[in-house]
C-alpha cells in the first residue's frame, strides 16, 4: 500500500485511541470528585500530567482547577492532544485515506467528529462530562468495531492496529505512572491503608476493574501493577499491546517468527520477548517509575522506527526496485 496512506491510517487510529483515553481519564476523575468532601483542586492537576501536556497547560491556564482542566483536555484546540484536536486530526487523516478505508469507517469517524464539534460548541459537557465521555468511548469503540468487521485484515488493517496499540500502551503506562505515584509515593508503602476509591478509579480508568477482580480478587497494589503491565490477556495491558503490535508488524513484513527484516520488527520483538520473561518482582526491583520510563522510551523507539521503515521511507528511487522487500 502507499506509504502516505499507511501513515494516515496509522495516525487515524492512534488519534481516535488518544481521544478515547482522554475521555476515560476525565470520566473517572469526575466520578471520584463526586461525593468527595470538598472539591479538591489538586484532584484535577494529575490528569494533565497523565497526558504529558502539563507545560502547555501551565502556559495557557496557570493553576489547574476543574473547569480549566476539563476545557483543556476536552475542547481546547490549542492543545494538540485534546479530544477535539485528536478527533479533528483523526478525521483529517481519514479524509486523506478515504478511498482506502471502508464507507462505514469513514461515516463513523465523520459522525464522531460532528458529535464532538457540536458538544464543544454547546459547552454543556463542562458541567456534566459523563455523557460526553461515554459518547466518545462509544464512538471510538464503534470505529474499532467497523474496522474489525468491514476492513480486510490486510496491511492497512495492521497499520491501523499498530497505531491503536502503540497509543494504548503509552496511555496505560502513563496513567499507571502518574496515579501510582499519587496513590503510593513509594512501593514500600505496600500494606499501608488503601484509598480504595482511588484504586478502584485507577483500574476503572483503564476499564480493568472487572477483569482484575476475576484474576486477582482483592485490590493489592503490586497485583494491580502486574495486571496493567504484564497481563497476557487483558487488552489494555502494556504487554498485550506490545504483543499484538509485534504480531501486526510481522504480518506487514511477512517475516518468520523469531526473525526480523527491519528495525521496527527488531525493536518490537525485543521488547515483546523482554516482557514475556519479566515478572512483577523484576519491575518493582527496578522501580516502577524507572521501569515505565524505560518502557516509554522503547515504545517511542518502535514508533520512530515504524515511521522510518514504512511511513516515510527514504527516497526509494535510489534503491533497487523490488516488487517486494519480503525475505523468506
Amino acid at each position, binding site marked *: 500500500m502507499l506509504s502516505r496512506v499507511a501513515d494516515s491510517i496509522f495516525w487515524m487510529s492512534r488519534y481516535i485511541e488518544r481521544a478515547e483515553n482522554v475521555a476515560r481519564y476525565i470520566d473517572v476523575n469526575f466520578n471520584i470528585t463526586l461525593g468527595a468532601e470538598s472539591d479538591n483542586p489538586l484532584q484535577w492537576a494529575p490528569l494533565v500530567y497523565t497526558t504529558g501536556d502539563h507545560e502547555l497547560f501551565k502556559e495557557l491556564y496557570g493553576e489547574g482547577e476543574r473547569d480549566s482542566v476539563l476545557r483543556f483536555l476536552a475542547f481546547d484546540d490549542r492543545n494538540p492532544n485534546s479530544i477535539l484536536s485528536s478527533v479533528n486530526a483523526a478525521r483529517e487523516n481519514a479524509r486523506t485515506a478515504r478511498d*482506502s478505508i471502508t464507507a462505514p469507517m469513514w461515516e463513523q469517524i465523520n459522525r464522531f467528529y460532528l458529535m464532538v464539534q457540536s458538544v464543544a460548541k454547546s459547552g454543556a459537557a463542562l458541567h456534566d462530562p459523563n455523557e460526553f465521555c461515554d459518547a466518545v468511548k462509544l464512538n471510538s469503540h464503534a470505529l474499532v468495531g467497523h474496522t474489525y468487521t468491514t476492513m480486510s485484515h490486510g496491511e492497512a488493517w495492521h497499520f491501523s492496529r499498530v497505531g491503536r496499540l502503540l497509543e494504548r500502551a503509552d496511555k496505560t503506562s502513563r496513567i499507571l505512572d502518574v496515579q501510582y505515584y499519587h496513590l503510593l509515593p513509594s512501593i514500600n508503602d505496600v500494606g499501608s491503608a488503601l484509598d480504595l476509591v482511588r484504586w478502584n478509579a485507577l483500574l476503572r480508568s483503564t476499564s480493568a476493574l472487572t477483569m482484575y477482580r476475576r484474576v486477582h480478587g482483592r485490590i493489592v497494589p503490586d497485583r494491580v501493577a502486574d495486571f496493567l503491565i504484564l497481563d497476557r490477556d487483558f487488552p489494555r495491558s502494556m504487554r498485550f499491546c506490545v504483543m499484538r503490535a509485534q504480531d501486526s508488524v510481522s504480518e506487514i513484513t511477512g517475516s518468520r517468527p523469531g526473525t526480523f527484516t527491519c528495525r521496527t520488527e527488531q525493536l518490537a520483538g525485543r521488547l515483546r520477548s523482554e516482557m514475556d520473561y519479566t515478572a512483577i518482582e523484576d519491575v518493582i526491583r527496578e522501580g516502577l517509575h524507572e521501569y515505565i520510563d524505560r518502557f516509554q522510551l522503547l515504545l517511542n523507539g518502535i514508533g520512530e522506527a515504524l515511521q522510518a521503515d514504512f511511513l516515510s521511507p527514504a527516497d526509494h528511487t535510489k534503491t533497487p526496485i523490488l516488487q517486494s522487500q519480503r525475505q523468506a
Partner: protein
Amino acid sequence: MQYQAQGFDETFTSEGQPRPACEEFYRRLQMIGPDELGRRQQAAELQFRNAGITFNVYGHEDGVEKVWPFDIMPRVLDGAEWSSIEAGLRQRVMALNLFIDDVYNERRIIKDGVVPEELLRTSKTYRPEMEGFSPTHKAWCHVNGVDLVRDKDGQIYVLEDNLRCPSGVSYVLENREVMKRSFSQVFHGVSIAPVEEYPEKLLQTLQSVAPPSAHQPLAVVLTPGVYNSAYFEHTFLAQQMGVQLVQGSDLAVVDNVVFLRTTHGLHRVDVIYRRIDDDFLDPECFRKDSCLGVAGLMRAYRAGNVALANAPGTGVADDKAVYAYVPQIIKYYLDEEPILNNVPTYLCGDPQQRDHVLANLDKLVVKPTNESGGYGILMGPQATDEQRAAYVDLIRSNPRNYIAQPMLQLSTVPTLIGDRLEPRHVDLRPFVLAGEEVYVMPGGLTRVALNAGSMVVNSSQGGGSKDTWVLRN
C-alpha cells in the same frame, strides 16, 4: 398543488398539467403531504451530512468543506428525448477527439480552412509539447462533462464542453443513493435508467487506454490533495473503482517509467486518471513551481509507458472560442449534421462580431474563454452600467479572451423551498466516457439555482443539485 411555472418547466406544461413523462411521478407525489416531503428532504440532508459528502469552497473562513446541497424533487427526462441527446453527445465527443488528434498532428482542418490557425495559435490551452503525439485509440478526452441547458423554446443547447477535469459525477451517484434511501416511495413503479454502472465503465475506459505492453493495467487516480474543491469526488471515484488515490508525492519516475511509493517499495503504474490541470502535471515540462505533479511524468508519457486521462493538451478543444466551431468540426470529421445545437456565440476576436457584442452588452452574456466554475462572467441584462463599462475595457484589451452569447431563459424544475414547491432554474451535465468505446451515462448532474430567478447554478456560487431520472419507456 399550487405551482406556477414561468417559462419552460421540465415537470409541468404551461397549463399546469404534468408532462407525459412526469405523470406517474406526479401521481405518487400527490399521495405525499407537504409535511412528509419536508421530512424526506431533512432525512436526505442528514444523510449527506453524516456521510461527509462535501465539496470545498475556496476562500471561506468557516471551514472549507460544505455539505453537498441537494433538493429532493427529481428532474425527469423522457426516454425518447434522452436517446437523441445521447446520440448528440456521442457524436460531439467523437468529433472533438478527432479534432484534437488532427490539431496536434496533420492539421487537416486548418489546411482546409475550416478552423483558422490564429485561433489555435492564441489558445492558452494549446500544448506545443503534444505535437506529433497520438494516445492509444487516438482518444484524448476520455472523460467529458457537457453542459446542456433548455431554453424557453424547449430546445436543448450545448452551453459548453468540459474536457479537462470535469467534476460532478460522484454527486450523480450519491444523489441517486441518498434519494433511494430517503425518498423510496416515489421510485416504486417507475423505471429509471441506472447510473450505478459508471465506476465500472470508467475503470474499463481507463484500462482500455493503457499502454499495450501492460497485461493487467494498474490504474490510479491522481489528486492535488484534500484542499482541492473536488477532493471528495477523487476519493469517491478511486474507492468505487477499487484503485488507489495518489498525490504527486506518491509517484516517482525512474527511467521513464512511473512508480508508486509503497510500504513494500516501488510498483509500476500504467494508467493515471489525473485530476490535476496540465499546468501542474510535471514541473519539468509545464509550470516549474508546481509541487502537485510528478517530475518526469511527461517523459514517461511520451515514451508510451503510461497513459494519462484526460490526455495533456485536451483543453484546446474546450476553449470557448473553439466551442463556436464545434458544429463545423462535427460536419468536417463525421460528415453529419450536429444533433445538439450550440448556443449562438459571438467571438470577440473577430472584429465584426466584437462590434456587435460591444453594441449589445445589455442583452448578452460575456464569458472568458478559459475560466470555469462561473468565474469572470458578465450577465449583461442584469449588470450595472459600471460593470458593463468595465467589460468594454476588458474585451478591447484582450478580445481573443472573450465570447458572448444571448441570455438564455433556463428551464425550471419544481424545487422544495420551505414547505412549498417553487420553480427554480436548472442545467444538466451529462458525462461521456471515451476510450476504446464511448459510453454515455444516462442523465447526468442536474444543478439548480436555489435563489428565485437566478440562473447561476454553480455549487461554488450557491447552487444545489437534484437527482436526474431518465425514464425507460
